[in-house]
């Protein structure tokens, strides 16, 4: 095990927090959808991938300034998430849970292959944004501006989301629907609209994550959503699926853990992705409800 100076430790920690913030943004989408539908949205990682391509084409093909392209990509991704919900999940809402799960896997494959057909399988380079990718030095830590921007964006969005859910009428409807669709409907809540809104928000957050991901890891391809998707699902489980703050904590644990593992035990670099899955197994064995999760009683 290599010896590590404080400076180096801080460097890795910053990188870990930054990566963890990206995981957190994507994990929120999993946890919100699970909270409201008890469904693991396997297409979420691919929706994330689509957001990267939307941004790419916005800049590369349509010549938009990066900020405009990013905003358009976030909107398009939110719409895509809502379309997937309406097309692949809503018609199956009264069917057994496994049907809708299979439909989610199908939606995932469909999006991936659609991306291959439409965008091509060859990797592309995400547009550079000089302003954010400039390297700077704080004390002895060298980093891209982006590395600091990512956690700030994540925490700001988290605060906004928590405010929306806990302090607004739509948020109250979401919480009510997540416990009891039927009674929420009796109160006049538009359950379908509330569920669609949840997909829209989760997808928009994934899009924000995807854009920052693209700037951090600029090589993009149609299957790039698979591994981040799985990892963020794991992050959501670690945090306690259904709990938004938990998903963010899970994301941070995963991001920091992964970077630290590689930093401290460089010989395990090849097992970087395995870390998440081992953590998942450990959590499922010892605390299946996750860090912030509550015991969920099956609905009768």
């Amino acid at each position: 095990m290599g010896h590590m100076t404080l400076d180096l430790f801080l460097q890795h920690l910053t990188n870990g927090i930054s990566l963890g913030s990206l995981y957190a943004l994507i994990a929120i989408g999993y946890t919100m959808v699970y909270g409201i539908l008890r469904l693991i949205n396997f297409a979420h990682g691919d929706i994330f991938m689509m957001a990267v391509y939307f941004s790419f084409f916005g800049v590369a093909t349509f010549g938009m300034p990066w900020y405009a392209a990013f905003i358009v990509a976030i909107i398009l991704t939110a719409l895509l998430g809502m379309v997937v919900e309406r097309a692949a999940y809503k018609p199956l809402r009264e069917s057994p849970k496994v049907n809708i799960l299979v439909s989610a896997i199908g939606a995932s494959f469909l999006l991936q292959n659609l991306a291959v057909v439409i965008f091509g399988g060859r990797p592309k380079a995400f547009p550079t944004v000089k302003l954010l990718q400039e390297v700077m030095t704080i004390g002895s830590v060298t980093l891209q501006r982006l590395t600091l921007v990512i956690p700030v964006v994540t925490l700001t969005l988290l605060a906004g989301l928590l405010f929306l859910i806990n302090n607004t009428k739509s948020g109250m409807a979401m919480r009510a629907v997540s416990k009891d669709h039927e009674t929420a409907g009796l109160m006049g809540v538009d359950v379908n609209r509330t569920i669609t809104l949840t997909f829209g928000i989760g997808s928009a957050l994934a899009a924000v994550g995807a854009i920052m991901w693209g700037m951090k890891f600029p090589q993009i391809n149609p299957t790039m959503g698979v591994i981040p998707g799985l990892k963020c699902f794991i992050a959501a489980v670690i945090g306690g699926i259904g709990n938004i703050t938990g998903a963010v904590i899970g994301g941070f644990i995963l991001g920091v853990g992964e970077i630290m593992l590689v930093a401290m035990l460089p010989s395990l670099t090849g097992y970087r992705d395995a870390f998440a899955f081992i953590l998942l197994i450990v959590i499922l064995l010892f605390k299946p409800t996750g860090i912030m999760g509550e015991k969920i009683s099956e609905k009768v």
Partner: protein
Amino acid sequence: MLKINDLVVSYGKVEALKGISLEVEEGKIVTLIGANGAGKSTTLKSIVGLAKPQSGTITYNGKNLLLEDTKNMVRSGITLVPEGRRVFPNLTVLENLKIGAYCRKDAKAIKDDLEWVYSLFPKLKDRSWQQAGTLSGGEQQMLAVGRALMSRPKLLMMDEPSLGLAPLIVKELFNIIKEIHKQGMTILLIEQNAFAALKIADIAYVLETGNITLKGTGQELLTNEEVKKAYLGESTHA
């Protein structure tokens, strides 16, 4: 106000309702009593669109209710207090009450109604910041009724509000139902607790395995020999 005509509902091959007709007149308390599985809840579920009838009609002030979506019931003035209370356990007491007024836009009147509900159920006011899941069964039932009242219903329907509650709480609850009715609300009450329901009912129907077998005023049925034997027992009468 509400008219059900020859309503048939089946779940798969089982006919839960075999063609029932009943009417709720404005300003009255109407009760539907019957044993477990008689079809009482199915009747309510059909009214609010949660069960789909095979045939028959349900009209509300002349409007065909079978064409309405569940979420529009509250807007047309029909609110159900569902069986088993079904308060939102993850919402505070205050939020549960607010979601009852989800479709309303008149902030001032909502505030007045909140005070009105608090005056009917003072305990809810003390616990307004508590999560509803932490309330006792009786308090949850009060909350479920309060939540329904917050929608300002014209027709308030209650599915077995006395279920699982201590006798003292049932008495308290029925006093409040009477009080709400006195203030002008039309009520359709479904109960297994026949004695309590008949005592406050203007009109009562007896439902037996999907058929309405008796109809009368609450007083008439209270003294009816068959009803006494089947639903009241000798001891309750004392």
